[in-house]
């Protein structure tokens, strides 16, 4: 076993003619927390969506927990077992209760018994401090609560890696804090995380490394202090100025 959780080697991705990812090379160690930032359309989402193959890359290698992502279905299943994902728009299943949202994927994807699946569901909901809402439907919850349920649901599958795609961008400002707090707790428990976010406070305090992307390329990566105090590339400097001005 290597201590590398994720490796992207010379990954290229096209949407039709559009070259969305250009020679992406990225390595993430076990337990490492990586924040990806960059302008809109720079390929952040595409990068992490390739890691659990919601998008297929066209070229290069992606290796997750030692398994290479190919058209092999079994390999894909194995990778998705190791990788949890949290989306900007929560994507809770609206026809199921909060607890069923957590239990059903375990039952279907792993054959867990309902009793155990619900036990695990309650445990993870409790970890996200939302167990008291277990019997409600998603649309009865606030955005912040929904996102915490989404995190709990992903954690129920006991992933070793968590991907976050702008988990707080769809939230009202007063709810961002509660979600970030849960993510910080998760980081402290040693979870390997890749997080696309514009929450620079979170990046500073939690990330081991910040990756900056522009136009489908990784322009710069550095530990947060170096990244924020002493950005090398011109694009990074421009981007950071914009972010700070807002």
């Amino acid at each position, binding site marked *: 076993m290597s201590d590398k959780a994720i490796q992207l080697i010379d990954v290229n991705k096209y949407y039709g003619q559009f070259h969305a990812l250009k020679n992406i090379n990225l390595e993430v160690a076990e337990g490492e927390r990586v924040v990806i930032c960059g302008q809109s359309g720079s390929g952040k989402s595409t990068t992490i969506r390739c890691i659990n193959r919601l998008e297929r890359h066209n070229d290069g290698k992606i290796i997750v927990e030692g398994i290479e992502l190919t058209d092999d279905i079994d390999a894909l299943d194995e990778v998705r077992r190791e990788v949890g994902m949290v989306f900007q728009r929560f994507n809770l299943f609206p026809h199921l209760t909060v607890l069923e949202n957590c239990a059903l*994927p375990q039952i279907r994807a792993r054959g867990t018994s309902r009793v155990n699946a619900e036990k695990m569901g309650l445990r993870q909901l409790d970890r996200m401090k939302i167990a008291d809402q277990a019997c409600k439907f998603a649309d009865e919850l606030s955005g912040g609560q929904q996102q915490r349920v989404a995190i709990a649901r992903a954690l129920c599958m006991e992933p070793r890696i968590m991907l976050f795609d702008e988990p707080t961008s769809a939230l009202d400002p007063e709810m961002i804090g509660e979600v970030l707090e849960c993510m910080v707790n998760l980081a402290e428990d040693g979870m390997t995380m890749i997080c696309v976010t514009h929450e620079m406070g979170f990046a500073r305090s939690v990330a081991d490394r910040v990756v900056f992307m522009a136009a489908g390329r990784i322009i710069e990566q550095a530990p947060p202090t170096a990244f924020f105090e002493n950005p090398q590339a011109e694009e990074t400097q421009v981007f950071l100025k914009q972010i700070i001005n807002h």
Partner: protein
Amino acid sequence: MTAVIAPPQIETTYLGWAKRRLFASPGDTVLTLIFGGAMIWFFQFLLDWAVVNATWAEGGKELCREVSGACWSVIGARGRLIFFGLYPYEEHWRSTFACLLIIATMVLSCVPWFWSMKRLPVLWLSGFGAFVVLMYGGIFGLKVVTTEQWGGLSLTVFIFCAVVVIGMPLAIGLALARRSKLPVVRLVAGSIIDLFRSLPLLTILFTAAVVVPLTVPDWAQGNKLGRVVVAFALFFACYQAEIIRAGMQAIPDGQEEAAAALGMKYGSRIFDILLPQAFRNSLPSTINQFVITFKETSIVTIIGFFEIMASANAAVGTGEWTAQYIEVYFFVGFVYFLFVFGLSRYGAYLERRARLSNVR
């Protein structure tokens, strides 16, 4: 400009409601009086005819000359024919039980406990299976009654249920095929759907009943009722497939992505996540399609089946009761109404329920 707008006055009494909705202006008042009067006259007339001046007494048609209203005696005399068609007299109880069984199945499927992609099909397959066993016989010491002898209400109910039971899975299959990633699959499903939707139902049923026996080898023909039901089910499936597809299109992509990211396989993504939501989205159109299909079963009369419309025709066609055709058609209309009204009320209830859980 700060105009103060008074909050709208909402009357809660019946009198207030009537004043606001029926007599708000002189024009409204006139219309209300005209239509109100017409309605009162009409229902008075109906009541007089159907109840006050009517008779239920048993007896021959002579009795009918003596009453000015409806002569329901015809239902007593010809009811069995209307309900059972040519089904053997001493086996009528089987036909009755079969119909009650289906009605029980319909009522059970209104219970939310059954609303899962597993329980509902199981319920319907067993209800419908038991119906067929009762009607056809051949086991448990039941005499065989071939489908040529089926008739009346139970044939109508059979055609409707068979069309839905066969058509619904087909519709789901077609809808899924139409959104498949494989172009060939998509094209084939699309062509079938468009073809069947562009042909009149009657043409399709005629082809199945009359043309197929001329062109298809004997061993592949099946019986006539079977062919007609399958053709009807295909027709139903093509409309229902589009309804389901529309319901699926309303679901955000994120739903399937989230399920995939959680490691759920294709079948589970479809049956646990997408279809339940698609059905919820398309509930009004689905109920509508059921209602249309129930009424369209009467078309099979034309190709020689003895469903409830045909047996009603037969009931008044034999001479003795010719004058009582109004009563008979009225009665048959009422039977249709009971089914269709039940269906649409149930649909309205489901919709209200779905809406509630959306805003809850």
